[in-house]
């Protein structure tokens, strides 16, 4: 991957949260472990995985909404791993975030106009009058009628709220937007509206997305490449097509097979994965997936599989591949 094309890169990133019991650290939630990823300008990287596997944490570390335990975050050629909150402030113009929950991510006591113009205020862009114009423009762009500018979030449907969130994120013309499950809370019909909107914006302005979701259909649709996370580790990273034809990791396979598809001919044959995700505090030794893997071998219990390139641009972390 040519260097200049890379917009966002994380290298061997770790993010651990101390577990406090009665005030003292008693171990760590190892939310993200040894993750390396790159996102090129204008592309979408999908990140999938079960709930609690570290998707959000990884995303937040990328845009430095949280500190990093170890590793590096490079954005637009600049190492932002250790920048202070203050130093980051101007950079926030270039990296934005869209949240999963369209309810709690909008301040219930602010009007839509205030919400969307807030990044402009913080970044000191435009005069107040121009800002209002810009807000209208953005609302229009995101499929919201600008006459609603004085309404409050609760007066909108979930899909509309998510559009407000999107308008806020793109208000400052960012180069990179982290989409943290932007459609999981929405109805199918609304979901497709929002996805289309995001994709239109990308083709128009060349924003790069990190698109987090546990809905594989959606991720598959929007992404150029997809990373599959399991317990804070990337287990498979490949171009989207590879996931259709060439799923390599047993977890990826199980995941894709578990998607309930509309259709009655090839009903699911295999028993679904058994058991729950292990606790991220006591990660299993060896391959993190071995506790649920149908193909576990002795080696998997002791040895951590490296993320290897098995094909051009297709990385897998499994001893069996």
């Amino acid at each position, binding site marked *: 991957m040519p260097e200049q094309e890379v917009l966002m890169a994380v290298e061997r990133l770790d993010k651990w949260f101390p577990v406090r019991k009665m005030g003292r650290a008693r171990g760590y939630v190892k939310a993200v472990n040894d993750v390396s990823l790159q996102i090129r300008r204008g592309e979408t990287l999908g990140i999938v995985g*079960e*709930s609690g596997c570290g998707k959000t944490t990884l995303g937040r570390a990328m845009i430095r909404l949280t500190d990093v335990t170890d590793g590096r975050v490079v954005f637009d050629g600049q190492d932002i791993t250790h920048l202070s909150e203050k130093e980051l402030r101007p950079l926030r113009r270039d990296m934005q975030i869209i949240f999963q929950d369209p309810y709690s991510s909008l301040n219930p006591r602010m009007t839509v106009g205030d919400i969307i113009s807030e990044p402009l205020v913080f970044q000191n862009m435009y005069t107040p009058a121009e800002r209002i114009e810009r807000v209208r423009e953005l609302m229009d762009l995101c499929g919201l009628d600008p006459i609603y500018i004085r309404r409050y979030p609760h007066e909108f*449907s*979930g*899909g*509309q709220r998510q559009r407000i969130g999107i308008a806020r994120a793109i208000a400052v013309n960012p180069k990179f937007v982290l989409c943290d499950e932007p459609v999981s809370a929405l*109805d*199918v*019909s*609304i*979901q*497709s*509206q929002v*996805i*289309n909107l995001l*994709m239109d914006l990308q083709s128009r302005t060349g924003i790069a997305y990190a698109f987090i979701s*546990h*809905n*594989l*259909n*959606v991720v*598959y*649709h929007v992404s150029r490449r997809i990373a599959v996370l399991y317990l804070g580790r990337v287990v498979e990273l490949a171009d989207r097509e590879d*996931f*259709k034809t060439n799923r390599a990791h047993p977890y990826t396979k*199980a*995941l*894709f097979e*578990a*998607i*309930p*598809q*509309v*259709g*009655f001919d090839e*009903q*699911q044959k295999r*028993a*679904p*994965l*058994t058991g*729950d*995700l292990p606790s991220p505090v006591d990660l299993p030794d060896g391959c993190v997936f071995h506790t649920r893997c149908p193909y576990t071998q002795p080696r998997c219990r002791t040895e951590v599989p490296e993320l290897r390139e098995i094909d051009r641009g297709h990385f897998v972390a499994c001893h069996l591949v």
Partner: protein
Amino acid sequence: MTDKQPLLKVRNLCTYFYTDEGIVYALDDVSFDVARGQTLGIVGESGSGKSVTALSIMRLVQTPPGRIVSGTVELLGDDILKKSKKEMKQIRGGKIGMIFQEPMTSLNPVYTVGNQIMESILLHGDCDRKQARERAIEMLRLVGIPLPEKRFGEYPHQLSGGMRQRVMIAIALSCNPQLLICDEPTTALDVTIQAQILELINELKQKTGASVIMITHDLGVISRVADEVLVMYAGKAMEYGSARDVFTQPRHPYTAALLKSIPNLEDDVERLHVIEGMVPSLSKRPAGCLFNPRCKHVMPVCREKRPALTAGPDGRLVRCFLQSDAIEKEEAHA
């Protein structure tokens, strides 16, 4: 649908909410049957009245502002809506069990899961606390929770989402209900867990012979578990028939559009199919067909007249002027 007496017979059920903004027609003239041992799927977008249907059957609609205005809900020929409060307590949790959408908030965070399962058992079965405890542990084992004795004494927050939902199922099934209503039981869960839960419900249904109403907006889920499906839109039934038929040959434009808008690994499209617009406000419903503002096949008549739900030759019910000219008679309860 079936010749035998169905387990549950819902007829012309209307539930309205009387709010300051006006009357919300949350459920308007809905009828369906659930046969023994069968699964009825109810699909529809958010706000289409799915939950209100379930709550109306349980008579748990928040009153005020809600009220079941008319219709009947017959459980084995007995109209639930005419039961006294006391009889209702027996039916709830006894004859009909219910699972709610959000497993975290649906369990009381301050009581152990065991306590919450036992509560239901103690209310309905005549057994002492010890027996109830044993039965509760057995239920936990039945729904596939490892180490049920240990989990029995734990609080909801100590369990994962999947386990919590299993606990909800255990509560609902603890008294061998004849009917299990699942209101979006898997929406909050991951695909792998979702598959486990659906598998579990299917298994239990087979074991106990209960009927199931499965409410969801995930068409994939419905197609996996349902025998029949009811498609709802804005408080009205739009299409009602066997699941296989409805999904393979949708007759209502809304059903068709819904099916098409799901992104799919198989058919790779550049842009997703969308249904433009939003579900109309149920207190200010459009004139004519409720779906007309969003319908691709809209005809002038659709903007003026309400189509009636009419049966096709194969018994499938559809509410669309493309299928039949029948016009709905005026609403009785304005």
